């Protein structure tokens, strides 16, 4: 079967209908720059349609299931009890339900002076000039159809602004919840995080589902602008149900001597694409791109890194660990581009994978494009299984096989978790990963969602 390169006429009609409907009520549609931004992006999407596996950037991931589904915007929904979704110790939590900011569920007090946290929709209405300075200036709508689609549908999301020199100790959490609906629905969360020079901030983006499973498509774009000598951390947690499509793009723009970290933890979602695209645009910048993906059942978890060195003396470190069970398919595509001016670049990439079953699959691909002549770029990938020697060693001391497997998987996962600086985020994520291990690694074969296939222990490792 041959995938079509562009969306069919019928598909485009649905998207056009959606877009026309959306622009009637979209925030700031009266602002010429914003209207233009949306229209250009939509036009670009209509030109390209969804990517196919013949596109090098999408070689290992087919999005045909997204392309052929007619999505409608998610409906407004009311939620009351969010106790289980709170993260202890955060500075603020913005809650979005089906893509809409839910003020009554959010906690916004207690932020230090100089920190603005708001719904993007509201900020567009109240301070359009602030938003205009950055929104849409970094995300690549030309190359990536999903970015184009998100930009066309910029509606709501988070706006975070940290003034020069301000330090926010605890992380700011953005919680995106999707509810069960009768038909396939979509949201296009858009976040703008601006950390001015010498500031410090951490943001957690947390995607989850409530109240049962239905087909949902979250297509999110975050632009993170880190000024000179700014320290910024971004955490992505994907823990939606297995019917969810989740396409994420984190576009980081780093100023001189900025130190930015991106941490991704993919646990849920049926088809997930995680794009991380930092541009080291100022001299002496450092970027850590750290991730963990754990798939089981038929999950497809794709991590596409695009690290751009655009200034001299910058360092980037990529560390991604994958644990794949069942028939899960993981992808790590690590692209490093070193521009001609970016001398003395030091870029490193490591991808380690554990396959726990015969049917699990990983595609790992480094891609180095180096145009400068004085650089250091290294990459490495490993694919292995749980080490039988290690397992036997633990068992020989009295630790049960299940517990031993759990310890070994946790140790592997913790390599990534331990790189997270924020104690609040790290401990929260360690807990989630620990719980999730009960669903992977054949530890409780039944799983919690009912979609994890039953498997016998003999199949594992």
């Amino acid at each position: 079967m041959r995938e079509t390169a562009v969306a069919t006429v019928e598909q485009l009609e649905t998207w056009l209908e959606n877009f026309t409907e959306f622009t009637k009520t979209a925030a700031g549609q009266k602002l010429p720059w914003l209207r233009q931004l949306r229209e250009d992006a939509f036009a670009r999407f209509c030109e390209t349609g969804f990517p196919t596996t013949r596109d090098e950037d999408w070689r290992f991931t087919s999005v045909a299931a997204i392309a052929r589904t007619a999505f409608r915007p998610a409906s407004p929904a009311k939620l009351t009890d969010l106790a289980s979704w709170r993260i202890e110790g955060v500075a603020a939590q913005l809650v979005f339900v089906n893509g809409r900011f839910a003020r009554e569920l959010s906690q916004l007090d207690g932020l230090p002076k100089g920190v603005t946290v708001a719904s993007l929709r509201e900020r567009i209405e109240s301070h359009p000039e602030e938003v205009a300075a950055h929104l849409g200036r970094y995300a690549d709508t030309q190359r990536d159809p999903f970015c184009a689609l998100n930009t066309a549908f910029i509606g709501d999301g988070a706006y975070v602004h940290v003034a020069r020199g301000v330090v926010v100790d605890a992380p700011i959490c953005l919680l995106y919840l999707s509810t069960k609906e009768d038909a396939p629905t979509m949201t296009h969360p858009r976040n703008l995080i601006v950390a001015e020079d010498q500031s410090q901030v951490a943001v957690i983006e947390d995607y989850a589902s409530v109240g049962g499973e239905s087909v949902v498509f979250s297509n999110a774009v975050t632009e993170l602008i880190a000024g000179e000598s700014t320290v910024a951390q971004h955490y992505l947690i994907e823990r939606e149900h297995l019917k969810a499509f989740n396409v994420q793009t984190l576009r980081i723009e780093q100023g001189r001597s900025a130190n930015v970290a991106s941490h991704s933890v993919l646990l849920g979602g049926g088809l997930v694409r995680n794009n991380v695209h930092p541009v080291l645009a100022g001299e002496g910048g450092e970027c850590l791109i750290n991730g963990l993906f754990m798939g089981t059942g038929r999950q497809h978890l794709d991590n596409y890194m695009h690290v751009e060195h655009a200034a001299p003396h910058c360092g980037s470190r990529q560390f991604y660990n994958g644990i794949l069970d069942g028939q899960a398919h993981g992808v790590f595509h690590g692209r490093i581009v070193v521009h001609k001016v970016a001398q003395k670049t030091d870029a490193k990439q490591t991808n380690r994978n554990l396959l726990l079953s015969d049917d699990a699959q990983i595609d790992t691909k480094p891609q180095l494009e180096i145009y400068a002549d004085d650089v250091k770029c290294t990459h490495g990938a490993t694919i292995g299984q749980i080490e039988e020697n290690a397992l036997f060693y633990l068992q020989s001391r009295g630790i049960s096989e299940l517990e031993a497997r759990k310890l070994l998987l946790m140790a592997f996962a913790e390599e990534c978790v331990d790189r997270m600086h924020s104690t609040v985020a790290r401990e929260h994520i360690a807990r989630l990963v620990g719980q999730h291990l009960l669903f992977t690694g054949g530890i409780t074969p039944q799983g919690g969602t009912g979609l994890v296939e039953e498997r016998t222990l003999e199949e594992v490792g």
Partner: protein
Amino acid sequence: MSLLEIRNLHVTVGENEILKGIDLTVNAGEVHSIMGPNGSGKSTLAQVLARRDAYHVTEGSILFEGKDLLEMKPEEAACEGLFLAFQYPVEIPGIGNTYFLRSALNAQRKHRGQDEMDAMDFLPLFREKLKLLEMDDKLMNRSLNEGFSGGEKKRNEILQMAVLEPKLAILDETDSGLDIDALRIVAGGVNSLRSPERAMLVVTHYQRLLNYIVPDFVHVLVDGRIVRSGGKELALELEEKGYGWTEHDTRQPVGARA
């Protein structure tokens, strides 16, 4: 009832028969040494006893305190009181030494119906054993055996044994690669654990270790069979004459059995 009773044990790995009919009885309080040349099956015997599943038992039986050891998983054998000090201890990044050892102890305590030990209760016990083996506390904050020298790994094995207090300890070539100081420390740790309730099976290629851990019985394993058993003086005899002597000496009875 004997602590360990091995009867006519035959073991294959892949196509090869490694153990060809082992009989061995070990009682509580005894220290037995299994000596033999490389490839004679010493380590296979140790691993089978610890229930490694890569080895296939084709014939014979092993009773541990009257229970069928061959029915047990490695963790069950450990919980019943069997301990193997590995010839090649495994490095496991990401699992802390202290956490690991407490988890192991608690798994065994739970099996025996005892309360689990929390970190506060565990620490004094742990410290005491560290001292016994002259080990640096700092090592214990690191990952399991990760970056340990050969000697440190072997000491860590004996440390684990000292904490877990097994009924039967099997030491698989614990002396190999140790300098004389480390050997003394390891042997000192082992000797401090000798007791009327505990038995030991010391697997070694060389007689050297037996100067420090003096066995009650010595068995010579050649080509998968115990060809000679005797007292500690047998080890000295072996040292003097080499394994060739036993092989030659026993060719006749082995042939007769087949």
